[in-house]
């Protein structure tokens, strides 16, 4: 990706100190700047936006809420990033969320029993087994997507479209079209529990993020995945097992979606096969794009995707906090996508360069 260098920036870079150059050309500059602008708007217009208080040893405040609500999206965006790096796309994320959430909720369930005369709920299946089963279903979904893309060589959008349509149907088949309610208290810890004063979901996201980062930065895997995205044929000729790599990214993406499904069902204490994670795939793609990952593959930023997810959630929260009707949210999102995509395109930069020259 040889983006034409803006002469104005290059000129400034010659005279500026090296760390400033580094900062100006850092890929995270624009997403972080966008997030800061949003937070600035909040700081000016929403009273008490940065208020943090400690109640019962837990940290409360709008910022914590945003982080907690963004957790499923951040997970989905992490998985989506690796898929998009290989020039793929996974639009079955929402369906996988519904499937894994449904499986977990049905297995955990919760039956009331009397213990020493006190009613208590026990899980139908031991929770670790239920969680493992839910993630197992998610992994199977990923394997299915990966085999369709790498084995049968379907276009990624079509391959994942199949699961997107059928997955929700399967989830509804499992629940018989009903919403499954969970009564087993320990399960709620995943999505709404606190650990050392912070929501537990944040630790989960952080763990997945760090693990992914280590995996792609400290091993050759990141380089391999990038190579597949830049030129699949060349990567294969260079001896990479491209098919295995592609299956891996789809399995990884589905695993992230499965985790997100656990967080969502645990947070709302029920699994709704029809609505859980609806349109999550689109928000995840949006987060990845906002974070500076190229949809043409090959160039990516995991941290950028996390920032992108935070931008989306902050935008939503801001719109609610400002008292603007929530319906405006979609229009704003659309305009943001248009602006980001157009400003990322080479044609736009050329236009800008010509004008600047």
């Amino acid at each position, binding site marked *: 990706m040889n983006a034409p260098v803006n002469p104005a920036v290059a000129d400034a870079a010659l005279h500026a100190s090296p760390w400033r150059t580094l900062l100006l050309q850092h890929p995270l500059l624009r997403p972080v700047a966008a997030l800061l602008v949003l937070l600035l708007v909040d700081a000016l217009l929403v009273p008490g936006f940065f208020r943090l208080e400690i109640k019962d040893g837990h940290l409360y405040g709008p910022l914590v809420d945003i982080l907690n609500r963004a957790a499923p999206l951040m997970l989905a965006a992490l998985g989506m990033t690796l898929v998009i790096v290989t020039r793929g*796309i996974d639009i079955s994320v929402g369906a996988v969320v519904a499937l894994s959430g449904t499986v977990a909720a049905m297995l955990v369930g919760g039956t009331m029993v009397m213990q020493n005369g006190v009613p208590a709920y026990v899980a139908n299946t031991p929770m670790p087994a239920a969680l493992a089963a839910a993630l197992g279903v998610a992994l199977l979904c990923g394997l299915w997507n990966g085999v*369709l893309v790498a084995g*049968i*060589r*379907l*276009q990624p*959008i*079509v*391959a994942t*479209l*199949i*699961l*997107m*349509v*059928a*997955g*929700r*149907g*399967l989830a*509804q*088949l499992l629940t*018989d*079209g009903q919403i499954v309610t969970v009564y087993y208290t320990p399960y709620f810890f995943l999505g709404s529990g606190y650990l050392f004063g912070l929501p537990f979901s944040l630790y989960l996201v952080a763990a997945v993020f760090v693990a992914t980062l280590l995996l792609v930065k400290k091993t050759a895997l990141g380089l391999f995945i990038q190579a597949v995205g830049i030129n699949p044929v060349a990567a294969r000729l260079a001896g990479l097992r491209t098919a295995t790599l592609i299956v891996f990214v789809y399995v990884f993406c589905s695993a992230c979606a499965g985790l997100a499904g656990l967080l969502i069902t645990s947070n709302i204490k029920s699994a709704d096969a029809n609505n859980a994670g609806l349109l999550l795939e*689109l928000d995840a*793609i*949006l987060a990845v*794009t906002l974070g500076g990952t190229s*949809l*043409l593959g090959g160039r990516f930023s995991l941290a950028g995707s996390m920032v992108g997810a935070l931008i989306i959630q902050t935008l939503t929260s801001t719109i609610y906090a400002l008292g603007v*009707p929530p*319906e*405006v*949210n*979609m*229009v*704003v*999102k*659309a*305009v943001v*996508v*248009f602006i980001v*995509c*157009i400003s990322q*395109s*080479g*044609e*736009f930069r050329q236009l800008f360069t010509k004008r600047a020259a």
Partner: protein
Amino acid sequence: MSAIAHGARGLSAAPWFTSMVTVVLLAAMVGIGGAAYPGLLSPQVGFNLLIDNAYLVVVAVGMGFVILSGGIDLSVGAVLALSTMVTAWLLHSAHWHPAAAILAVLMLGALFGGAMGAIIHLFKLQPFIVTLAGMFLARGLCYLISIESITIDQPFFVAVSQAQIPVAGGFVSPGALIALLVLLAAVWLAHFTAFGRAVYAVGGNEQSAAMMGLDVGRTRIGVYALSGLCAALGGVLFAFYMLSGYGLHGQGLELDAIAAVVIGGTLLSGGYGYIAGALSGVLVLGAIQTLIAFDGNLSSWWTKIVIGGLLFVFCVVQKLMGGRR
């Protein structure tokens, strides 16, 4: 033996083979369904299939052009919803003449699609992401007009919605008739005009098309404008059908349209297939729903599972054939 094998290979390599598979599938479904539930074979069931899916036929025709050109349009469901909303609002609050309202909505749809096409072409962006943003925009605009559903009680719309045109022992709605006319016009446009040939050329290989001197930009913008126009017309038909405008109309419709086009035998990589396949694709989807409704024991989610399974089978068949060609 080898002659038969050769003949079979020649048959499966013929461009109309997948389309024929769909038609055979449709006939088989109706046949098996008819054997199980004799009521299914009454002509009115077939006409109802058309009446209930008229808007989907029109939307799938537009989607067919986009997919033939090698693109994809995810905004059609939202544009359909926006059209019902604008129609209802123009009639209800602005008291426009129905003809003027319909004309305005159609132009709006074409402009919306054309604008997306222009952005895709000028900035070399992926159709997927641009039409995704278009989807958000159109849905958002719906809610800006009204969050609630707006009822249409304009006399002309009510009259059209209740009109029954008698045909061969049954009746069809004006909407179904319009859908068939649109399909005919689209077939003519695709196979007998320069625009249609340009669409196939761009979908087959954009660079070759450009080198042949075809105006790729104009073709692409035209294709998305056509898809927007079809989605808007689908919206008008939907407004006839439902007599309301609502921001939640047509949710997931884009996927139904894509599925119909694929099942109708059009390759998603572009440049290969028939516009008429949109009709057989839509009818197969409709027949699945009718069969599930006739069975009575199967729940509605089986529709999704069966459609997913069919998509899978058709994609794999297309791939296997593509490998042989």
